[in-house]
């Protein structure tokens, strides 16, 4: 908590979880990795949730320390209108591709990402399919 001002405990997560403001993320990430007491060196997973009712994206970083063997779930929120987040690719290189996936499917923009392009879909795909308001004529709903 002391590492990032404005952070708070994220409730309703089945693991230790902290919610930080998006501005603090870039400074916090290297500390999480390098602090001798923390040493979160493995970014297990990164993804985004589209809370369309609140008008925000919630980003999740599942961290793990292979040194100490503890977990942390880091979350942060950005607005849906301007979803720009600093990249953590410099701290955890795997974030490079996990962020590309989140960009491709959710449309989160990563500031400072060197190679931000579509990962799974074609470059000329329209829209970001995992957003809740995504519409595609070729999608077929389940029959009632």
């Amino acid at each position: 908590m002391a590492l990032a001002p404005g952070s708070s405990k994220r409730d309703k997560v089945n693991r230790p979880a902290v919610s930080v403001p998006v501005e603090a993320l870039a400074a916090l990430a290297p500390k999480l990795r390098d602090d001798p007491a923390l040493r979160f060196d493995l970014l297990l997973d990164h993804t985004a949730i589209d809370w369309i009712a609140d008008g925000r994206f919630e980003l999740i970083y599942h961290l793990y320390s292979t040194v100490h063997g503890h977990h942390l779930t880091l979350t942060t929120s950005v607005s849906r209108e301007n979803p720009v987040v600093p990249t953590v690719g410099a701290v955890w290189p795997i974030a490079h591709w996990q962020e590309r996936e989140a960009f491709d499917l959710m449309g989160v923009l990563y500031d400072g990402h060197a190679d931000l392009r579509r990962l799974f879909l074609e470059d000329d795909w329209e829209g970001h399919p995992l957003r809740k308001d995504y519409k595609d004529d070729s999608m077929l709903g389940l029959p009632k």
Partner: protein
Amino acid sequence: MSVSLRTLNDVVRPPTTAASALATQEYFVNMGPQHPIAHGSLRLVLRLDGETVKEVIPVPGFVHRGIEKMCEHLGPRQIVHLTDRMDYLSALMNNWALAMTVERAAGIAVNERIETIRTLMAELQRLQSHVLWWGVLGMDLGAFTPFLYGFREREVIGEIFEETIGARLTMNYIQPGGLMYDIHPGFARKVKDVARYIRPIIDEYDTLLSGNVILQERLRNIGILSPEKAVALGCTGPVVRASGVPYDLRKVEPYGVYGKAEFDVVVGTVGDCWDRYCVRMEEMRQSLRIIEQLIDNIPEGPHMVVKYGARIRIPEGIHYGQVETARGVFGVTIVSDGKGEAPYRMHFRSPSFNNLWAVTALAPGWRIADLIAIQSSLDLVIPDIDR
């Protein structure tokens, strides 16, 4: 703010002309999506200088079916069958990851019998997956015969699944709250027979392929992945263990009945392709060890603790669960808004997706043939990358 979007065309720049008469010109080559090394459909754009690989640009997505979107419309029981179709070689372990996460979220306590059978099945599948990997590695390196030998043993293990589950590949067996079917009375005897059969077979594999000079030349000191790099690149499973990081969920945070079984975490020392090969070979033996310990004392009890067809409500919040599949950590993130059965958002952390990117760090500087060895030693399943 400096967010610049790029396309593949920006990355694959046309080759520049040679700087001098003696310099060689680089060129781009597409490996895949339909290429024998792809093991499915993965596209690797290679920047080559003669035979030497300068850069690898993986382009996944040729089997991206949008499973995560589909999950937002399905209940937990229905999602189980989609997890089969990601890493189909670890189908049971994927089932388990989802079942475990749902159970922990919904507060369902499963009995010892279910956990033991799950563990047994998972280990059998790990064995099957590694056997298949061994064969495919042989084929990738040009020895076709190991491929067929590997499949011979895969069928032997597959018979157990067929008898118990009825499916050969997509199992849909481990359900939230228990198992689809109970095991049959001859299960224990059958598994013991297979374990007794497989053990000398793994030694036979060693004599057939491991001792071969050409194989060792092709694998030793190729694609060395240091422990720091492996962790930074998010590698898990045998890949990170071969680099010397003893990160095995079965030991680190035991689930199922792994806590009761005695087995060793196999770690490598160098982190090259040969270590990844040896780690998997030894893991087969460790899997056999676990199976042999557990098979004799499967406790009694029902095979399903939740009434079949009952709705499983996942409480509001973010639920994360993970298991160790044959390829690494398979994580499930269920985001529930507390309304209805279908999750609000579902995300899978697939081991192949995270292991794939090691290729971009390992292959540059090596030859095309080494790229094949490196990719084969990572043991990728493409639908697991694409989801």
